[in-house]
């Protein structure tokens, strides 16, 4: 009992901290938000400050950053990509198109999936068309707060 609570309190917190501080991501590009994801990696914004390194293989990634439109044709492949990541894994939907369809919502486009959450579970949505790198970083920090159980993550705006 004692070890269990110790695990939950201290060791668990350390593990949560480690997960939050080392989000290796795999960017799935498409459309304009991909550029901003790339810029946020560049030295002006530098995502590596938060421990984020871009990965190319889904097996080594913890975070899937989906930016831009997902078409119905690509949706099963995206799901397969998500499923090939080992747990614990997180998803960041960057941009209006990935969040809810944006300007390619279901009334306006016959080919785009209206929102990433129709395919895979999403942890954090970043609004914007395209979002600035600052808001992508904000979304990332929100995700870190969510993982490490920071109460800030549960404040309703």
């Amino acid at each position, binding site marked *: 009992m004692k070890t269990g609570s110790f695990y939950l309190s201290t060791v668990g917190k350390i593990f949560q901290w480690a997960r939050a501080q080392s989000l290796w991501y795999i960017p*799935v*590009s*498409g*459309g*304009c*938000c*991909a*550029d*901003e994801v*790339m*810029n946020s*990696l*560049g*030295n*002006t914004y530098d995502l590596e400050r938060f421990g984020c390194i871009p990965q*190319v293989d889904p097996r080594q990634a913890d975070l899937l950053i989906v930016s*831009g*439109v997902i*078409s119905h*044709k*690509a949706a099963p*492949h*995206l799901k397969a*990509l998500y499923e090939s990541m080992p747990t614990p894994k997180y998803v960041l939907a960057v941009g209006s198109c990935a969040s809810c369809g944006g*300007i*390619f919502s279901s*009334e*306006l*486009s*016959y*080919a*785009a999936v209206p929102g990433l959450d129709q395919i895979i579970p999403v942890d954090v949505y970043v609004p914007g*068309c*395209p979002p*600035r790198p600052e808001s992508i970083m904000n979304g990332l920090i929100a995700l870190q707060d969510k993982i490490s159980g920071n109460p800030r993550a549960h404040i309703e705006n």
Partner: protein
Amino acid sequence: MFKPTLECLNADVTTWEIGPYYSALPGPMKLKLRLDGEIIISGQVETGFLHRGLEKAFELNSWNSSIIYADHLDSEGAVFGELAVCLAAEEIAGISPPPRAQAIRLILSELTRISCHLNYAVKIGRAVGSETFTHYVLRDREKLLDLFELLTGARFSLSFLRFGGVKADVTEGFIERVIETCDLLRVRLKEYNDLLTFNQVFLKRTSGVGQISKEQVMRWGITGPNARASGVSFDIRKTHPYSEFEKVDFHVPVSNSKGTHGGDAHDRFLIRLLEIEQSLEMLKVFADKIPSGPFLETKSGSDFKVPRGEGWIRIESSRGFLGCYLMSDGGLSPSRVQFRTPTSSNLLVIPEVVVGLKIEDLPLVLASLDLNIAEADR
């Protein structure tokens, strides 16, 4: 250095299907390769993973929103899409934008060209694993994005052009910033050359790799820097001048490397750096001489209509010949918008250009073709 030949390893022929999400690919697309050892003997492309129904979305929205959708044709160079749609609508409606608007459009278009080419350099740097170069270029690209932000308020989806002009006048201090940035970039270009362009390893990786001959350029309708790297001097800005490009004095860099290395990945990289230099020259001369006057013919409200008719517009985007076919039935929204994008012709050459490549060169060659899948799939 020698031309990669189709060596026969007599190894087992393997099929390898990569994509749609794979780091070697420039975007969501599928590539079905047949490999003999490490050498590619054939490749087939499948696209359509980013088909968003863009052309249909134009037909479902008002004329004013079509500028916003035109932004999303090619996200890196949003201005080119906007410009194509605006020019086509203006041709149908017979509106001629005031000179000041034309000048602003030209400046914006050249800035976008520089920004797109810098993005291209980033992709090349990634493909050869030169991270330092990548970060330096990204830093300088921020300067251009700052300029866009100063002028239009947005970094990527600008939606700044209007039918018959531009949305707003140039911001205070914009011209000075443009000239400042041009001076800075000229210094940076030299840095890039020191760091990557004439680096021995980079030369070895790129020269003679992924060659496109003049015949291939003509056969597949490749345009823009890719064609000029192969020695085909074709530029819409010269043959069909738009937005007062005829009044600007500039020359189009064309690669003259002959023999075994013509039209290889290094030529394509170099021609883009030369084009950046050319655009800098153009901006430096032109930015000071913006004519005064109004920047918009008439403000178009939400009931803006274009009279019945059709138009076919060609412009030179950063990747080449961007065409826009626009048809209006006089209604509240366009009747048909169709784009001819440079990437869709660049994609056609892939099955030919990958033959004989080693798979290590595949990301480099695909990056050097400057493919934007969003633009090709629409």
